[in-house]
C-alpha cells in the first residue's frame, strides 16, 4: 500500500442555519485547508461529497465547484455520499500512483428542510418511503433494540451526551457544548422514545475539507502527517427488519480490514449521530475504556450532513498532527441506523 497522509483539515463553524450559499460556505474552508496544507495548486485530484435532497435543488455539487478552484480544468469527481467516501475515492486515486495530492471537501445545508423527513427519502421507495418514517424514529427503534437486548440503560445514553458536550467546549466549531448533568437529562421528555432530544444530533449547516498527500510530498509539507494506515468501508442490508440492529457488522469488517486491532488506539472519532450508536460502534471496533472517544464532541454536538463523517477523519488527523495522539481511529456512517460504515486508521509515524 502506498503511503498517504492527511496533511491539513479545515471546517466551517457549524450553525443551525447558514444563510450563505454553498460556495460562500465552502470557499473560506477550501482556502484555509489549502493554505494550511502547504501544497501548491493544482491538486492532482479533487473529490467531494454532498446530496441534492438536503436543499431540494438538483446539482448543488456543480455550483460548489466554483469554490474548489477548477480552473484550469481539474481531475475531479463527486460522490453522492458523505465526504468520508470522497476521501476514500481520493485515497484510491493516490493508490493508483496517478496522483500525489488530493483536495477533498464536503458540505451540507440541512436547514432549509425538515431533515428527519427528508431522510425518509433514503428508504425503500415501495414499502418504506410511502409511510414517511422519520430518521429520528428509526434510530429510536435501534436504540430500544440495543437497550433491551443488551440490558443497557438510558442513563448510559445520557452519559455519552454529557461526555460529548463537555468535550465540545474545547471545539470552536461545535454547535452544542456545555456542562450537563445525567440526572437532568434523564428528566427531560422523550423526542422519540427511548431517545430524548439530546440523544439526537443537532441539525446544522456546514462544510469541511481535507488535503491528502502521498509519501515524500506529505513529509515535505507537513511536520507530522497523519498517515492513513488502513481504510475500508462496508454496507449492510437495507431492510431494518433483516438486520441485527444491536450490532454493526459492517463496522466490524471495515475495522478489521483497516487494521484497528493492530495496535493501541489513543483516540477514536466515531460518527455516531445518536447516543446509543456510540456504544454499538465501540463494540464493533473493539475499543476499550481507555480510548478517548470523540474528543471533538462528535456528531452529537455538530452534525453537518455529508460533512460530518469527513470531519471525524479530519478531527482524528488533527490529533495525530498536534501530537496528542499516536494512533487514531476515525469512523463515518451513512444511511438509516448505521447501514453503511467507513473506518480509517491514522498514525503519526
Amino acid at each position, binding site marked *: 500500500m502506498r503511503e498517504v497522509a492527511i496533511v491539513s483539515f479545515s471546517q466551517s463553524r457549524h450553525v443551525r442555519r447558514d444563510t*450563505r450559499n454553498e460556495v460562500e460556505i465552502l470557499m473560506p474552508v477550501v482556502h484555509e485547508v489549502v493554505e494550511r496544507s502547504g501544497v501548491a495548486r493544482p491538486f492532482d485530484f479533487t473529490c467531494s461529497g454532498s446530496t441534492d435532497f438536503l436543499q431540494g435543488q438538483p446539482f448543488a455539487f456543480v455550483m460548489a465547484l466554483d469554490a474548489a478552484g477548477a480552473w484550469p480544468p481539474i481531475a475531479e469527481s463527486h460522490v453522492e455520499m458523505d465526504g468520508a467516501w470522497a476521501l476514500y475515492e481520493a485515497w484510491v486515486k493516490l493508490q493508483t500512483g496517478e496522483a500525489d495530492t488530493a483536495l477533498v471537501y464536503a458540505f451540507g445545508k440541512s436547514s432549509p428542510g425538515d431533515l428527519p423527513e427528508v431522510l425518509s427519502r433514503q428508504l425503500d421507495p415501495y414499502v418504506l418511503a410511502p409511510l414517511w418514517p422519520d430518521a429520528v424514529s428509526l434510530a429510536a*427503534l435501534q436504540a430500544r433494540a440495543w437497550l433491551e437486548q443488551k440490558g443497557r440503560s438510558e442513563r448510559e445514553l445520557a452519559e455519552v451526551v454529557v461526555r460529548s458536550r463537555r468535550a465540545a467546549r474545547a471545539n470552536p466549531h461545535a454547535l452544542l457544548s456545555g456542562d450537563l448533568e445525567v440526572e437532568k437529562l434523564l428528566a427531560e421528555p422523550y423526542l*422519540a422514545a427511548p431517545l430524548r432530544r439530546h440523544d439526537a444530533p443537532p441539525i446544522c449547516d456546514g462544510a469541511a475539507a481535507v488535503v491528502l498527500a502521498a509519501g515524500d510530498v506529505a513529509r515535505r509539507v507537513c511536520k507530522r502527517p497523519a498517515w492513513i494506515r488502513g481504510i475500508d468501508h462496508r454496507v449492510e442490508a437495507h431492510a431494518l427488519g*433483516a438486520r441485527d440492529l444491536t450490532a454493526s457488522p459492517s463496522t466490524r469488517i471495515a475495522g478489521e480490514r483497516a487494521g484497528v486491532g493492530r495496535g493501541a488506539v489513543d483516540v477514536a472519532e466515531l460518527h455516531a449521530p445518536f447516543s446509543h450508536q456510540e456504544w454499538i460502534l465501540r463494540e464493533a471496533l473493539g475499543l476499550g475504556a481507555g480510548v478517548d472517544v470523540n474528543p471533538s464532541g462528535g456528531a452529537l454536538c455538530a452534525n453537518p450532513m455529508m460533512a460530518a463523517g469527513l470531519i471525524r477523519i479530519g478531527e482524528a488527523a488533527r490529533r495525530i498532527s498536534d501530537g496528542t495522539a499516536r494512533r487514531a481511529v476515525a469512523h463515518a456512517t451513512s444511511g438509516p441506523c448505521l447501514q453503511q460504515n467507513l473506518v480509517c486508521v491514522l498514525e503519526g509515524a
Partner: protein
Amino acid sequence: MKAPITEVDGVLSAPHVLEYPYRRSVGPVLSRFFSALRERKILGVRTRGGRVLVPPSEADPETGTAVTDDFPEVGPGGVVTTWSWVSRPREKQPLAHPFAWALIRLDGADTALLHAVDAGDIDSMRTGMRVRPRWRAETAGEIGDITCFEPERAGGAR
C-alpha cells in the same frame, strides 16, 4: 406564483417546494406482495436458503441471489421486535395521533416489517407484544392498505 419573500439575517428567503407524483413500476416480486395486500393478505417470499422475507424483495440480502418463486402467506398477526414512540406525528405519517413505529415479525416470517402500531398510549406498547393489521376500508394494492397494526388484545401483553 409569487412567493412571500422574507429576510433572515439580511439574506432573502422564500418557500420552496419539491413535489412530484412519482409513479413506480414494482416488478414481479412486489407485484405479488401488493396484489395480495389488496386482498388483505400478506405474502413473504422464500429465499433459496429457505428463509421467508417480509416484505419480499427480489434478492436475498445475504447473498444477492434471486429469491425463489415460493410466496408463502404470513401473519396476519405477529410480534413487535422493537419500537419507538411518536408523540407528534408528521403530516404524512400513517396516523394523526400518537403512535409507535415498530418492527413486526409476522407469524411465519424470518424478517420483520416496519409499520405503525396504534396502541393508544406509550404505556400500552411493549416489545414482544402481539399485533395484527388494521386494514384500510378500500384497499388499492400498496403498503398503505395496512393503515397500521394494533394490539391483538387490550394492553398488548402476550
